[in-house]
């Protein structure tokens, strides 16, 4: 098969996954400018939501500066060609939220569940299709289960009427061989397109995205400058350059996306999207990427090393959305430290925890 004929559809999630990196504080002006730039560049799907999807604004995940309606209306007014896309995580967002998003101009939805829980999304996929939206199934944390389980869950999404199924490496924990095994198995088993969503915690976001398309994926996610949870996502402008060099078509204007990244997204970032120790541990231990900033805050409050909290969360097999368990683990580690201090008469703040 000649790659020149292979077209890769891109979803930009700077304004959704990127929302984590700015603690959900995007302004309407920022949303409108980024969305307009991406739309002019020809990006077909532009995802805009709180990082945890519709209804995500909360104490647990962080409150948004804007309501969902305000975010979506700002983006919708700026988009002419592409599809305004939203994320919906059943258990957090509801069907009412999806109806609201449609009224605000959303054309596509990604309904996301943990890799083993696709059956909680049947109603939401059904409603999206009934309302005429493009519906993606989105399996999160796919590193936690072997290919056969991922296939079985992806098939559920296909049976509910999803237009495509995404495999998300939400913890940025997979190696290229893990991506090939899962994406390849799902591509073989399904008759609908398959997508892949990367995180850069192990420095493999672009390499893994390439491995995914080589295994038959035809949708990829990226964000400008890599802005996103944890160490960020596959950097969209890099991804487009790499795909072009590898001989794939994206139908997106490479230079125009580079300009959005450099001139618009770069200046609004709160910090450089680099791999620091805590995000490296997310990938290494397989912990949901959006736990990062919440973990920094808990580590400060309870005077702990973020790494110890993250390793414990990984050991307990916490899944996406369990940000509250960061508080639980931090509290428990701080209590253990008090106990060991009292027992040993030893006051090093770093003792008594961090067992790997």
């Amino acid at each position: 098969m000649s790659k020149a004929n292979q077209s890769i559809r891109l979803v930009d999630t700077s304004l959704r996954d990127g929302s984590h990196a700015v603690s959900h504080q995007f302004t309407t002006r920022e949303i409108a400018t980024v969305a307009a730039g991406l739309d002019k560049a020809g990006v077909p799907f532009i995802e805009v939501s709180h990082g945890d999807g519709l209804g995500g604004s909360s104490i647990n995940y962080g409150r948004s500066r804007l309501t969902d309606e305000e975010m979506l209306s700002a983006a919708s007014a700026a988009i002419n060609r592409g599809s305004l896309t939203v994320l919906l995580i059943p258990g957090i967002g509801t069907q009412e939220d999806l109806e609201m998003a449609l009224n605000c101009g959303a054309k596509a939805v990604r309904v996301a569940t943990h890799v083993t829980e696709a059956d909680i999304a049947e109603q939401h996929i059904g409603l999206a299709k009934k309302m005429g939206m493009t519906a993606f199934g989105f399996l999160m944390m796919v590193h936690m289960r072997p290919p056969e389980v991922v296939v079985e869950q992806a098939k559920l999404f296909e049976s509910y009427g999803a237009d495509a199924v995404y495999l998300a490496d939400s913890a940025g924990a997979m190696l290229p061989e893990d991506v090939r095994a899962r994406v390849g198995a799902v591509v073989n088993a399904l008759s609908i397109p398959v997508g892949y969503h990367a995180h850069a915690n192990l420095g493999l976001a672009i390499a893994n995205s390439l491995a995914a398309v080589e295994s038959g994926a035809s949708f990829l996610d990226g964000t400008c400058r890599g802005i996103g949870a944890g160490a960020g996502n596959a950097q969209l402008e890099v991804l487009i350059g790499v795909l072009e060099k590898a001989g794939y078509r994206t139908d997106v204007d490479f230079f125009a996306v580079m300009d959005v990244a450099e001139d618009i997204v770069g200046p609004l970032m709160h910090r450089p999207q680099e791999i620091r120790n805590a995000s490296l541990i997310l990938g290494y231990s397989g912990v949901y990427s959006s736990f990062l900033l919440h973990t920094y805050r808990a580590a400060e409050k309870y005077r702990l090393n973020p790494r110890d909290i993250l390793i414990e969360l990984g050991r307990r097999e916490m899944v996406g959305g369990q940000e509250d368990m960061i508080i639980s683990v931090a509290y428990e580690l701080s209590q253990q430290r008090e106990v060991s201090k009292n027992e040993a008469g030893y006051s090093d703040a770093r003792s008594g925890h961090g067992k790997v």
Partner: protein
Amino acid sequence: MDKIKVAILGPGNIGSDLMYKIMRSRRLKMEMMAGIVDSPGIRRAKSLGIRTTTDGIRPILDDPQIRIVFDSTGAKPHMEHAPLLEQAGKVAVDLTPAAIGPYVVPAVNIDDLADAPNLNMVTCGGQATVPIVHAIHRVAGARYAEIVACISSKSAGPGTRQNIDEFTRTTARALCVVGGAKRGKAIIILNPADPPLLMTDTVFVEVENPDEKAIRESVEDMLAAIQKYVPGYRLRVPPVIEENKVTTIIEVEGAGDFLPKYAGNLDIMTAAAAGVGEAIAARMQGR
């Protein structure tokens, strides 16, 4: 004094677990288990010497001695059962999402509702978190309550899975209506870790008056009240106060009557339902 005779409609997992709890009750007599087909639940009840029927609600309606009926079938069947039970003068304790009658959380509002003909058990997350919200609200004034319920995947049945929005909607409403919060939000997470995790609930409350001592004492009192009917209900993180935000984390270990211990979410439903039944029975017995 004679025990009050009760029946269970719906011999599934919830109905079976509830049956064991009722069999231990000092006030309730497990009189009949009703289903519509022969099933393991019917056979289980029969083997324990309990009257059973596969003719649905009719034999219950025909027995005037049955005073309280627990319905663990489904929302649609309960819609049909509710008026029949009321006409027959029987109190219905509704464990389905039908929610025809008011929400009841025994540790909070059973005394206000003991005369209602039909009581709804909210959701497992509601039974676990509304009491904490109420405990904080009664001393500190709850402006906003938000809960995150995590249950093990194995303990989430098809009913919950096919209508997960019903959980978030009903629970959020109960945080306000029963818990007292001005606004409420509920989130549910299913976690497939193996061995399965205990049910864990995080309760965030934004309050008017963050009096730490009063909040901690009120929560401790509430804990003792809940532990009377759910012994495995524990504080994992006692109320932590930051400015006007109170964070409390609880976990629920099931009694392991019929359902496994990790299914604290189901145990708290059946335990609370049995608790409601006992309170109603106490009033019927005049004490």
